[in-house]
């Protein structure tokens, strides 16, 4: 399913969509949004790429990235035991509220969840689309 119009529109829109998803993840502690929402935006970017440009074999790398996201999340929690005393304690300095480098572990957790959700949804779409292609 590829026409010249869809390919050109995707080429124009794709950088802005990816930038918007990353912005939603990075600014999760300042504006509405967060890891899940930005991750879903990035995952739907991957879906658009699959639909327009076809599927290539990248599933193994995606699952590695997804596991990395989950492991970063758990690693931050375990570092919280060492430095703060309990699981998932906010042990990094909080900073001034309202700036990008505030919130302590919240932004790290948001980035880890965003990585995990984005690659997870990309993997999910990849598997389902590959299954549909194989059946046809």
């Amino acid at each position, binding site marked *: 399913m590829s026409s010249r119009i869809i390919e050109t529109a995707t080429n124009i829109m794709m950088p802005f969509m990816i930038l918007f998803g990353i912005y939603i993840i990075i600014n*999760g502690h*300042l504006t509405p949004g967060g*890891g899940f929402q930005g991750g879903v935006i990035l995952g739907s970017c991957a879906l658009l790429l699959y639909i327009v440009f076809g599927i290539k074999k990248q599933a193994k790398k995606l699952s590695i990235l997804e596991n990395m996201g989950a492991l970063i999340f758990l690693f931050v929690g375990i570092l919280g035991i060492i430095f703060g005393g309990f699981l998932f304690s906010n042990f990094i300095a909080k900073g001034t*509220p309202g700036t990008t480098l505030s919130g302590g572990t919240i932004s790290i957790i948001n980035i880890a*969840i965003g990585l995990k959700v984005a690659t997870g949804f990309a993997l999910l779409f990849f598997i389902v689309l590959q299954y549909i292609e194989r059946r046809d």
Partner: protein
Amino acid sequence: MKGIIGIIIVLILGVLIFSSLRLEYGNSVGITAEMYIEKGVSETGAVNLVTSILADYRVYDTLGETIILFIAILGVSMVLKGDKK
């Protein structure tokens, strides 16, 4: 029979809607909500209160959601990647 069930459903929905009109929204209930609103910014450093609850106070909930997503992807890949014909 269908008419009676329909009348009962409409009555139940009407009672629910008209009783929900009399609820008061915007008033804080309980100590926990007051604590989040007063101390949320100073304790977590995040301006967005929803994120500070999701990623700091109730981070176990987020961990559970992550595990649910992981298990969902695991199940889909187990079911749909099985046949290689």
